[in-house]
């Protein structure tokens, strides 16, 4: 018996929420970034589930693109983080508050 679409959607939502929670509460920038990737993964899961249940494969192809973009984004983001570390000697987000009023 295939799990229903609802199950996949709820799973995806839960994964997304966990990822968001990580973004909210973690101090290490890299861990925050990883949680961002978690959220992306949840989104891809939902996309594939919906496309399957609509009887098509276009969702898969879209996931391709998402994966590519995620990879590029991670590369650039990590480069930024490394540059930031060189400048500020820290990657804890609550120490990076130069925009404070």
């Amino acid at each position, binding site marked *: 018996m295939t799990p229903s*679409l609802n199950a996949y959607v709820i799973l995806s939502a839960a994964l997304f929420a966990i990822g968001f929670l990580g973004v909210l509460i973690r101090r290490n920038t890299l861990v925050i970034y*990883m949680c961002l990737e978690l959220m992306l993964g949840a989104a891809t899961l939902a996309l*594939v589930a919906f496309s399957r249940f609509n*009887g098509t*494969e276009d969702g*898969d192809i879209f996931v391709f693109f998402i994966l590519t973009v995620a*990879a590029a984004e*991670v590369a650039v983001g990590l480069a930024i983080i490394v540059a930031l570390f060189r400048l500020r000697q820290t990657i804890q987000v609550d120490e990076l508050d130069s925009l404070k009023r």
Partner: protein
Amino acid sequence: MESIAFVILSALTLACALGVVLGKNAVNGAMCMLLCLAGIAGLFVQLRAFLLAFVLILVYGGAVVMLFLFIVMLLDMQGGQPWRFRRAQVVGTLVSAALLICGLNLLTVRGRLPSPVPPAAGVGSSLSYYAYQLFTTYMLPTQVIGFLLLIAMLGVIVLSRRHRDPADS
């Protein structure tokens, strides 16, 4: 059978996701992320998106998480609290969570998602079909992604240069 697999895979995914979020060590977090990706790949297989599952493992797990690990070990930050709570943020979080749960509830109770419709029979992940689609229907996004990757590469090179003094060139 399929539902049991589904339950196990989703449990694995969620548990590892929590491990990433709540683990103190960044390296442990990266490891958990890998396992989480494995779970998602399993779910993809269950949805009969075989190619996608492997691509996920290869690209995401093999490249992205590896990169993460490299950088974590490069930067090698130790110590400090993993997380902290502020009162206002806790309240905000609880309220937002409540709203989200309400939304989810509505989705399940009143949502018009189709009742279990099995995935279409002839649908499988045929590589030729993907390739055909990529180079005809989705030609434009493909090219644009190419540009994107080029620019990302250039951006990374620029960003990771050290600033040198004009004196010693």
